[in-house]
């Protein structure tokens, strides 16, 4: 227990007090009962502090056991020099290549390098619907312990034994790999410093008492010392940290270190991807706007034809919207040549019946039309801009050399997100929306969602630049990401939340992984971080404030016989000196137990500004910390006196 100086002093004090109790009992001294009770309650203090930590750790244990079961006795088929060999999963090393077929458990964390499969990840995420994992792209990462449901994939292992995701998760929930965070270390130093001061106080007090001709018995001095040193926070500090991690795990978020959780509480700037975080996943086609004298129906026709090969959600929504105009079950001739949507061309279409039909982003289609030698109608620009200013994304539809019309793709902002941003703002956190949209579109959505700022037409480099720029001002930045090209930014950010569906590179770069792959959760993570810090601060303040009452109990009791006038300081009118000392020690031990639920649950979090949070918490834990022990001590004293346990 040397890692906790406060509790170490308590333990040493217990030992000495017990020695005096035994000597007194052996000699049949009159104070044997009192000293025995005193030592017993001092030991209880140690016990309760250990109990708090054990309880916090115990919560994670059950979770760890289920995870551990998943790990055991999986066999892997490893490719060695072109042939397959069966190897225990625990023997797999980074770089090994394994084949996993339907019904088998993926033996370790890795990346799909060949094939596509449906994978059941419910063991990790709790989500029962299977997910698709395929080679290349952003959906290539697989997690050890999950089960392949269909097909067969080749996986390259990315983690050495003991380093896998599952291993980390187990050690994390068990608190085994827990390292003290900088803030915990600083608090430890403060508590150790206070402990040393109180040791000096008690030693000098004995000198003063000798001067006054009223030396205090050693066990009573120890009782005073134990009551003064911050045992409450000293005993609960690590439990608070473990409980904070545990709360994250309950939210299905895995933090790589406690430091990341603290950083989350400190975050000044949240970078949020528009899609999926602020808006509902995908844009939907909302209307067709004809130009050049075409009708709405013409636009719908051409748009649907151009989108048949576009498998993106936007493309599908265009097909669906056009169905409303009666275009169903279309059959194209065998001569039809499809142009698929790619990120480079940013348009899709079809060449059929001698016509070339295209739809895509405005500038892509416009330059295509120009290439064909066509001209642009005057009407086009205002129509495109009107869509943009309304926060929509305009897609242009063209047939051969003529522009037919514009498709209005609309972003749908998630319900309740605006209020969340308002709360964040009250907490002093700036939200920045990241989007690939043009500035006009971005501005409209930013306004609708209530974010503080936005970064439009963002490339991964822009994102990185933005993070660096914020950090150079001393701000802490949090972001989410899932793609490989997010990895550098995730690593640079102070809190990088990677989506579990993302690539292995992203997961390795971030310092947290969200198993539910829900980017909005970043907000909850910030709240959990803040709650963790608040709980620590509240209990520290409470613990120190408690000492005032204990002085008023113990000091008059110490000198009651030598200086009866000091009974004026006994403002609680405690029954007797023995009762006063015992009450203080009992209160000191019981308050640890009483505060365990608060330490594990965390102080209630409210999205308020710092000033009002401080006012509230200072009142509750500062002033409350001064008043509560006066009441508690008196009640314990009354109980002791009533039961006749003390003289």
């Amino acid at each position: 227990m040397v890692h906790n100086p406060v509790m170490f002093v308590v333990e040493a004090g217990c030992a000495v007090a017990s020695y005096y109790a035994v000597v007194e009992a052996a000699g049949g001294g009159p104070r044997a009962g009192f000293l025995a009770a005193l030592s017993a309650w001092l030991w209880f203090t140690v016990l309760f502090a250990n109990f708090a930590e054990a309880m916090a750790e115990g919560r994670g244990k059950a979770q760890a056991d289920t995870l551990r079961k998943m790990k055991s006795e999986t066999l892997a088929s490893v490719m060695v020099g072109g042939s397959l060999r069966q190897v225990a999963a625990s023997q797999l090393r980074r770089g090994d290549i394994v084949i996993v077929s339907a019904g088998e458990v993926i033996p370790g964390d890795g990346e799909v390098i060949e094939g596509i499969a449906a994978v059941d990840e419910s063991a990790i995420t709790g989500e029962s619907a299977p997910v698709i994992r395929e080679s290349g792209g952003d959906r290539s990462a697989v997690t050890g312990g999950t089960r392949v449901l269909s097909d067969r994939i080749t996986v390259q292992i990315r983690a050495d034994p003991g380093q896998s995701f599952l291993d980390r998760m187990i050690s994390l929930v068990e608190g085994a790999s827990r390292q003290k965070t900088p803030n915990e270390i600083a608090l430890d130093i403060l508590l150790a410093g206070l402990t040393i001061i109180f040791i000096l106080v008690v030693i000098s007090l004995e000198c003063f008492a000798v001067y006054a001709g009223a030396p205090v018995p050693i066990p009573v001095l120890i009782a005073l010392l134990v009551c003064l040193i911050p045992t409450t926070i000293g005993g609960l500090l690590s439990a608070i940290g473990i409980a904070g991690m545990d709360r994250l795990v309950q939210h299905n978020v895995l933090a790589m270190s406690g430091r990341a959780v603290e950083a989350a509480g400190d975050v000044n700037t949240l970078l949020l991807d528009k899609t999926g975080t602020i808006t509902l996943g995908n844009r939907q086609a909302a209307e067709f706007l004809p130009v050049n004298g075409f009708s709405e129906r013409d636009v719908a026709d051409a748009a649907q034809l151009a989108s048949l090969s576009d498998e993106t959600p936007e493309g599908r929504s265009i097909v669906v919207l056009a169905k409303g105009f009666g275009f169903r079950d279309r059959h194209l001739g065998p001569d039809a040549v499809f142009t698929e949507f790619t990120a480079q061309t940013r348009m899709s279409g079809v060449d059929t019946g001698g016509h070339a039909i295209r739809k895509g982003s405005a500038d892509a289609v416009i330059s295509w039309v120009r290439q064909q030698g066509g001209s642009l109608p005057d009407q086009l620009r205002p129509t495109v801009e009107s869509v943009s200013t309304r926060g929509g994304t305009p897609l242009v539809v063209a047939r051969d050399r003529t522009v037919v019309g514009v498709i209005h793709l609309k972003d749908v902002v998630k319900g309740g997100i605006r209020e969340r941003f308002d709360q964040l703002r009250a907490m002093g956190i700036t939200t920045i929306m990241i989007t690939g949209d043009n500035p006009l579109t971005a501005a409209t959505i930013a306004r609708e969602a209530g974010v503080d700022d936005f970064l439009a037409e963002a490339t991964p480099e822009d994102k990185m630049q933005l993070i660096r720029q914020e950090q150079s001002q001393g701000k802490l930045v949090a972001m989410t990401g899932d793609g490989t090209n997010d990895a550098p930014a995730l690593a640079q950010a102070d809190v990088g939340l990677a989506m579990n569906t993302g690539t292995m590179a992203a997961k390795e770069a971030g310092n947290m992984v969200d198993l539910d792959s829900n980017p909005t959760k970043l907000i909850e993570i910030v709240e959990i971080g803040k709650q963790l810090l608040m709980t620590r601060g509240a209990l520290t303040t409470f613990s120190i404030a408690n000492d005032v009452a204990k002085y008023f109990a113990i000091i008059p009791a110490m000198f009651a016989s030598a200086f009866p006038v000091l009974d004026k300081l006994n403002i609680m009118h405690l029954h007797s000196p023995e009762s006063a000392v015992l009450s203080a020690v009992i209160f000191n031990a019981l308050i640890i137990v009483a505060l365990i639920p608060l330490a594990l649950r965390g102080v209630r979090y409210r999205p308020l500004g710092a000033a009002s949070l401080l006012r509230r918490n200072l009142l509750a834990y500062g002033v409350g910390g001064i008043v509560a022990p006066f009441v508690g001590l008196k009640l314990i004293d009354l109980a002791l006196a009533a039961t006749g346990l003390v003289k």
Partner: protein
Amino acid sequence: MTWMGIAQMGAFAGVLLLVTKPMGAYMARVFQGERTLLDPVMRPVESAIYRTCGVDPKREMQWTTYTAAMLIFSAVCVLLLYLILRLQSIHPWNAAHAPPMEPHLAFNTAVSFVTNTNWQAYAGERSASYFTQMAGLTWQSFVSAGTGMALAIAFTRALCRQSVAEIGNFWVDLTRACLWVLLPLSAVLALVLVSQGVIQNLSQYVTASTLEGGSQVIAQGPVASQEAIKMLGTNGGGFFNANSAHPYENPTPLTNFLEALAILVIPAGLTYTFGRLVGNQKQGWALLTAMMVLFVTGLGCIYSSEQNGNPVLGRIGVNQAASLAQSGGHMEGKEVRFGISGSALFATATTGASCGAVNSSFDSYTPLGGGIAILNIVLGEIIFGGVGSGLLGMLVFAILAVFIAGLMVGRTPEYLGKKIEPREVKLAMLAILLLAGCILGVSAVSSVTRLGLAGRFNMGPHGFTEILYAAASAAGNNGSAFAGLNANAPYYHTTLGLAMLFGRFLFIVPVMAVAGSLVMKKRVPASSGTFPTTGGLFAGLLVGVILILGALTFFPALTLGPLLEHLLIHTGKLF
């Protein structure tokens, strides 16, 4: 309590608040090297000093160099002053015919004046030549105060700069503090004092015949020049043994008022300078508010306790009520020309501000009045505190307050945008621990050893209070004596001398290390989520942390000293 008394104290607080801003704004200009009215006079002097001493004023220092420069300067000063005191027999202007000081006493005095403590185990008019007073003690009164101001300014710079290692140039800060602030203010105050009757001469002592027919030697000397810096530099080392109770040092109620004010002018002004330098005036006002609350509370306690009089006298029918015919209250050990309120005011200012000048005898105060005086000191000399060192101490408490309560807003603690991390907490705790340990250690040892007990004048809790006060006064660099305790003995010369050294430098070095660590950090911009270190709430928190930490450390000692005596007096028991 009388209306006149309350009016005087109210006027004092009002005038103090009025001068804070101009004083602080002026000092901010001085330490930022901006233009001031005094430039035409002082600039040439300044550059002459730098040329002579080989100082490059443009070269800034890291905290290590800055602190080392300060330590070396102080060490040289101790040595020089020690030599001056030991060589008094060859001094010019030795009207007192003072012999060389004994080695113990010379060590004690040298340390005392270099650490801005100005504890005096000697009587000035008997043991110091005019040369000692002027070249040794007055010189030290300037530079020890200048040193304190330099340190406070350097610490402030550490808070406003970011991502650099330099915190200023010690020689420049010291020189500017002395030339632009301490010298001109002292000159003005000295002239005002002379106008009120404070003497300034190099004459021989005058022998006068008293009415009783006896003869009395009346000491003379260059008093006004030392008196002014004694107050302004929160030094407190009096020309005469009676300090500011002596009519040549503090002749009238007006000088009393001005001298008490002079103690607090620079420490109060520095809070405004602080706000100006860190770019947010409210930060300075919050510190001033905390100081003011503690000051007014302490003043109220001392004043009411003294004005209420001695309960034992009350019981035997002595009329201690204030009336037209008498000031009333507990007048033992107080000068009639200052009365209760003038004495209480002076006592609160001098103990809170680590000055140590006294115009009344604390040994004669009621136990509670004397107890508050001790409390003012043991809280860390931050109720305005010493020139510069008070702000330094207050900032350490601000950092601790932010650290203890700051987590409650859900962010890791930061003060003025600087993260408070393990290193800062470690050093700040170390500074506080060493100071408290010094006071507790010296008083604990002295209260159980034969040598320590030998100095007591009184028995029982009062004797204990005398010992406690001496330890607190030395380690807290206050320098006032409770009186009663005979500290003019090798044991106290040595222990208190060491306590003064430790109390000053073992506090300063870790605190400057905090500055060195803070200056390298980035400043996180403030937002609505930032822990507010301005406004009444923070001032209240700061007061709470100071009182609780102070009370928790010294409650047992104060209980067995002043508090016990107070309770016993009500039972009719005196010591």
